[in-house]
């Protein structure tokens, strides 16, 4: 670490400050100029921000180490540094791309046609979209833990009102639950940061990384901060707020919440475990994180297959995919318990996060379009949707395929890296979880595919028109996720990763995953997959199992059990850290 100077501004460092400021400048301009101008400002800023992220990526590519910018020229520990390494640059680029896609989609819902009356929901939406973007950029480039605290709070304050844009009682309740639970998470995070300052006298991340010792105060801090961040990321069993919030918000807002907002706190867990505290983090505690992730995959996927509404299905799929994002933590450790596979795990994690951000944004948009076109999004009544809305259905299915890791999606490459790491460290059980998660994802792709391609009993009538631009935006994001590994290999990753992508073995695995997924869907779906009868004596048993999972999900989403789970996770994490 000492070979690279992390405490002097580098060339291109000022761009980092610009990337954080740009969205906030847009917000202020919008507030000054008023509703009609805000969306114009937003549409100018989106390509500008994307260009800025590209410029940062180019500078990072040319530089030997991370980009650094010292605010006001003050050096840490007194000053604040902004830094961007490969992970930050990749995330900033992805977020800029997804924001552009979501912005194009939202133009139909929240854009103001000339002469139309201004509405509060539209004005709020554009303000909050910019705020989420700025806050996320700040999360990615912050160099110290306190600036990160402020960035995370900004992200929460921007995310919560997105939930209740529609203003109905149900969405307000979801927003309030989200806010209160996220606040519990932030207090725990702040408590951890305070302990670290007390122990080491700095919150600058590289300085902390040098000073940290595996001693109780650091372990307590890591356990508290991790638990707080898990509450904000909604990892099972702390997903109390996610399904109602993501399922109830307007599609353009759900896409922001599911694709972008949860990635902020997840990214910080990654930073803490792999960059700031590799000496404190232990393989046992990492098993806990991934164990919760595995539980999230199973519960989230089963409940997703049981949902009656497409949007809630996508929301529960997010619960499962968040679990997938936490599988990388034990795979950063080798068989001896040292963090030797850090690079591979971090690369896989960032790839998976970007793959999920792009695919899930596309899927939520597609679900919103289906709702707008058919007037409902009941999974059992989607027959004929493929003909009524081909582009959006394609976006949904391509997004699902990309998430399950079909070649050449980003999720494919991420899974491949993690499988290699599981092999190398002898943690075979995580290979099973990785493949199982992909099979579950295949399950809901098969389920929805069969429903939308089914022949409707009567020709669909009363179809509402939907914007073509919105459909293309959803499709564009889904396809971006499907082609992500090509971009990654063209960029900083070595090309041989994709060498065997189309081998018979890989295609066989893919076929097997589809088969298992179809079986899962057939067993757990509310209605038989094909026709109206069938399944015989097996289906009632699985339906019972599905009901048990749903009841369990409702139970852990009670407020008191979620709070107790939060404390338990913090305690268990701390206890496992001390045992290393």
């Amino acid at each position: 670490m000492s070979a690279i100077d992390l405490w002097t501004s580098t060339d291109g460092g000022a761009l980092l400050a610009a990337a954080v400021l740009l969205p906030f400048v847009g917000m202020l301009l919008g507030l000054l100029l008023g509703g009609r101008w805000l969306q114009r400002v937003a549409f100018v800023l989106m390509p500008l921000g994307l260009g800025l992220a590209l410029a940062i990526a180019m500078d990072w590519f040319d530089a030997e180490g991370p980009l650094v910018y010292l605010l006001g020229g003050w050096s840490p520990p007194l000053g604040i540094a902004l830094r961007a390494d490969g992970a930050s640059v990749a995330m900033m680029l992805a977020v800029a791309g997804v924001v552009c896609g979501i912005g194009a989609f939202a133009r139909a819902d929240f854009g103001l046609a000339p002469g139309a009356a201004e509405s509060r929901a539209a004005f709020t939406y554009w303000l909050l979209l910019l705020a989420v973007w700025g806050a996320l950029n700040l999360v990615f480039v912050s160099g110290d833990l306190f600036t990160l605290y402020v960035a995370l709070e900004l992200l929460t304050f921007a995310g919560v009102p997105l939930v209740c844009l529609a203003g109905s009682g149900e969405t307000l309740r979801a927003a309030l639950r989200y806010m209160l639970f996220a606040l519990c998470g932030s207090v725990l995070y702040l408590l951890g940061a305070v302990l670290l300052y007390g122990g080491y006298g700095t919150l600058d991340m590289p300085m902390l990384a040098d000073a940290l010792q595996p001693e109780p105060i650091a372990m307590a801090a890591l356990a508290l901060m991790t638990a707080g961040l898990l509450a904000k990321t909604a990892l099972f069993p702390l997903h109390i707020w996610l399904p109602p919030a993501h399922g109830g918000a307007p599609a353009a807002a759900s896409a922001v919440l599911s694709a972008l907002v949860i990635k902020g706190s997840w990214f910080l867990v990654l930073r803490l475990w792999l960059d700031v505290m590799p000496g404190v983090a232990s393989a046992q505690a990492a098993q806990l994180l991934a164990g919760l992730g595995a539980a999230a995959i199973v519960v989230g996927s089963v409940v997703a297959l049981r949902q009656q509404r497409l949007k809630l299905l996508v929301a529960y799929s997010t619960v499962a995919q968040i679990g997938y994002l936490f599988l990388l933590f034990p795979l950063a450790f080798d068989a001896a318990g040292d963090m030797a596979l850090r690079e591979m795990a971090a690369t896989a994690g960032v790839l998976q996060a970007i793959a999920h951000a792009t695919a899930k944004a596309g899927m939520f948009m597609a679900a919103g379009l289906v709702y707008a076109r058919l007037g409902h999004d009941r999974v059992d009544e989607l027959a004929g949707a493929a003909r009524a809305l081909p582009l959006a259905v394609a976006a949904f299915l391509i997004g699902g395929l990309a998430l399950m890791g079909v070649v050449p999606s980003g999720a494919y490459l991420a899974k491949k890296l993690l499988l290699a790491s599981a092999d190398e460290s002898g943690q075979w059980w995580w290979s099973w979880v990785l493949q199982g998660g992909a099979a579950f994802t295949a399950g809901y792709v098969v389920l929805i595919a069969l429903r939308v391609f089914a022949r409707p009993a009567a020709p669909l009538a009363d179809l509402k028109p939907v914007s073509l631009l919105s459909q293309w935006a959803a499709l564009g994001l889904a396809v971006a996720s499907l082609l992500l590994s090509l971009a990654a290999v063209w960029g900083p990753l070595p090309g041989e990763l994709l060498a065997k992508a189309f081998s018979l073995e890989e295609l066989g695995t893919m076929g097997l995953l589809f088969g298992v997924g179809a079986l899962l869907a057939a067993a757990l779906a509310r209605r038989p997959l094909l026709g109206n009868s069938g399944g015989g004596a097996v289906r009632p048993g699985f339906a019972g199992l599905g009901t048990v999972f749903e009841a369990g999900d409702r139970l852990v989403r009670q407020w008191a059990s979620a709070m107790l789970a939060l404390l338990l996770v913090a305690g268990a994490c701390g206890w496992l850290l001390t045992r290393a």
Partner: protein
Amino acid sequence: MSVETLFALTACVLVGIGLYGLIAQPHPLRKLIAFNIMGSGVFVLFGALAKRGAAAGLPADPVPQALLITAIVVAFAATAVTVALLLRLIESTGSASLAEPPAQD
């Protein structure tokens, strides 16, 4: 007992009361107050740590105070947003209950 220990113990008590309130109190407004009590506990702890971390010749480390004031402003903003949400919820549903209505299966 030194002043710092007294501060630290006070912080523990405040965090404990706050946690209890967050878990046990059903009304959102009480949860919000519990969050504020717990937050105050963390702030008191941070203030006490400033004394311990005092560097060369200063009576206390000034950095925690600068960070504290920011954290207090953030907590205040969070409280304001939550109260606004709660008021809208009561306006729209006539109740402040956080419990989800039973699933419509």
